[in-house]
């Protein structure tokens, strides 16, 4: 009882202190030092009409490379911890007819929609991460509907690595052409798409990077599902 009382008192004190801190932050007021700069220069500097995407992939692309790496680590970690020499699906119950038929009809469209999301990242809300997650949903549907279904996980692993390398190589090409790592050489040096703003072929390297991220996130999340759903079998 005394312990609980002590804990509650501590929590109240810490909560009050945090609330004091939060109360002092002028949220909602015009405090956009850097944000304003982005809004004013985004189209001319990056060619993307979606400012959020431009910040994520171009201005702060270095963070995004890091975030992609975080996801890669998560999938690699799951792979490392659930590793065994031989793994197989052991589920027995077939999906219901609604699920199987629905999956047959929908899976290709779900994937297509995922691709749409990441290709249009510089124009509409969305981008590589949600697009990739949508693609992985299609694979999850396939897993749930069919007990024997398996993704080609070896190939997926290789694709995952290869697109990851492509991302870094895109950055290194920027270093070679423009002199800076992750420099958008397509928009700024070559000047492609300047008269195409607001349409698909614009935005410099943003669509390329979002395609890379989309494929990577899709294969990674599917790989995690695959790793978690299978069980070890003794030979």
């Amino acid at each position: 009882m005394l312990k609980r009382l002590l804990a509650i008192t501590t929590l109240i004190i810490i909560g009050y202190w945090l609330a004091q801190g939060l109360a002092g932050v002028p949220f909602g007021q015009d405090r956009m030092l850097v944000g304003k700069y982005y809004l004013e220069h985004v189209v001319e500097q990056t060619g993307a009409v979606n400012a959020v995407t431009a910040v994520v992939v171009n201005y702060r692309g270095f963070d995004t490379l890091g975030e992609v790496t975080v996801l890669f680590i998560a999938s690699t970690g799951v792979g490392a911890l659930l590793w065994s020499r031989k793994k197989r699906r052991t589920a027995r119950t077939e999906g219901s007819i609604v699920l199987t038929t629905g999956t047959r009809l929908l899976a290709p469209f779900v994937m297509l929609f995922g691709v749409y999301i990441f290709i249009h990242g510089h124009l509409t809300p969305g981008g590589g991460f949600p697009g990739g997650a949508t693609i992985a949903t299609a694979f999850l549907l396939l897993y749930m509907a069919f007990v024997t279904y398996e993704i080609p996980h070896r190939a997926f692993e290789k694709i995952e690595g290869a697109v990851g390398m492509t991302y870094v190589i895109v950055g290194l090409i920027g270093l070679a052409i423009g002199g800076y790592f992750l420099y958008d050489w397509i928009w700024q040096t070559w000047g492609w798409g300047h008269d195409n703003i607001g349409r698909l072929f614009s935005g410099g390297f943003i669509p390329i990077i979002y395609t890379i991220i989309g494929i990577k996130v899709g294969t990674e999340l599917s790989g995690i599902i695959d790793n978690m759903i299978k069980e070890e079998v003794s030979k």
Partner: protein
Amino acid sequence: MNGQYASLLIALPLLSAFFVPLIKGLGERGIKYYLAVITALQTGIAAWVFQQVYSTGKPIIVMAGGWKPPVGINLYIGHFAALFVLIVAVVSFFTAVFSIWSMKVQPIDKYAMLFLLLMLGATGMIATGDIFNLFVFMEITAISAYALTAYNKTGEAAEASLKYMILGGIGSSFFLIGVALIYGSLGTLNMAQIAQLAGNMNPTVAQVGLALIVFGLAVEAELFPLNAWAPDAYQAAPHAITVMFSAFVVKAGLYATARLLYLMQAVGSWHDVLKLLVAMATLTVVVAEFAALRQKDVKRMIAYSSISQVGMIAFALALGSQAGVDAGVFHMVNHAVVKALLFLGVGYVGIKLGGTAMENFQGLGKRMPLTAFALTIGSLAAVGIPLFNIFWSKVRILIAGVEAGYTWGVALILGASVVEAVYYLRFIHAMWFAGEGERMREGLAISLILLLLAALVIVIGIYPDYIWSLAQKAGSDIFNVGQYIKNVPLMEVGA
């Protein structure tokens, strides 16, 4: 060569980690050698950067995407980062070589990827000049560390990893809220600009934000009371990984704490946060030393000793004086050398004799004299005997502590050091004066690494001046915030 090429420090480990799935066909040995080659390359790049920074005396500012800060993200490779990126790379190279022989648990390809990404994360944390980017690299470091802690796939490893993950997750969210508070009130994420504007911040907000950040980083920096995960993780992780944890992962957390702390110097409530950190650091030292005394497992004992040393570094960094920061950086270098030596030696014995319990070390002087010799040097250095490297940095920390007016902290640390001497001498006694055993063959590469590190301990112990001058430069890189702001080419944005 152009300074922007320093971005290879980040690009190379990333590229080579992504490349591993494509060369799975090389087999286990091939991947292990590949790991050693990549870390050797990284060492080369880091050595070039180190040479550049220390010969010109100017930091390298890498601007990702070509955007000037604060619009884009910049890396700030100053005296501190150049020195520590080199240490990260060298230690990684040693552990990669050690892994060739020691790593037997499957799947090696995943191990290689996580290994490279752990190195990448620590490098990034040390090099970045953007507070959110720091968070991203902290996540990279932490998540690969969780996975590697559990890598041996034993029950203990899973438990340790889970503990680490829960505490680490709480720490990261604290850190993120702290960053949000600072961003909310200043509107920028660039560290130099934060330092520039810090004076205008509402003192309560600054205090809360900074304290949250310090608490969040304290998990990575292994400060009491957020270090409960550390001994378990150190013990359960593969031996090579323990070396990396102690030699640089914890240093990255410490550095980030110190860097952010000094950036916010201009804040009105700054001294309260310093006091909080000094108290946490002193408690870390005392608690860890007494815990170490009771351990029957050598790896765990050294893990506790490592934590206590880390507490001492945090104490020095939190003193708020130039002398304290210099001494703390000097101790960081020495601690990296000594703990790399000790954990490598202990790991080597652990694999050779099938465990790291104290009994296995009895008669080690007769069975593996070279390893026992290296471990003895490391232990003596850790205790802080004169003419070994840690002596100098410990003395400087204690003097700086007294100068800064924390005599009580210094007294507690000195008392704890006596405890440290007791268990290290017990360890040395077990190696040389107890037990019997046949002479065993000791591997060439590992003996060479151990002897090299032991030689380094003694050389720094006898001629501390060179490393001390490096540490002073690196220390003023952290302490002298005015210079830091001047070095970053901030562009004018907004009003």
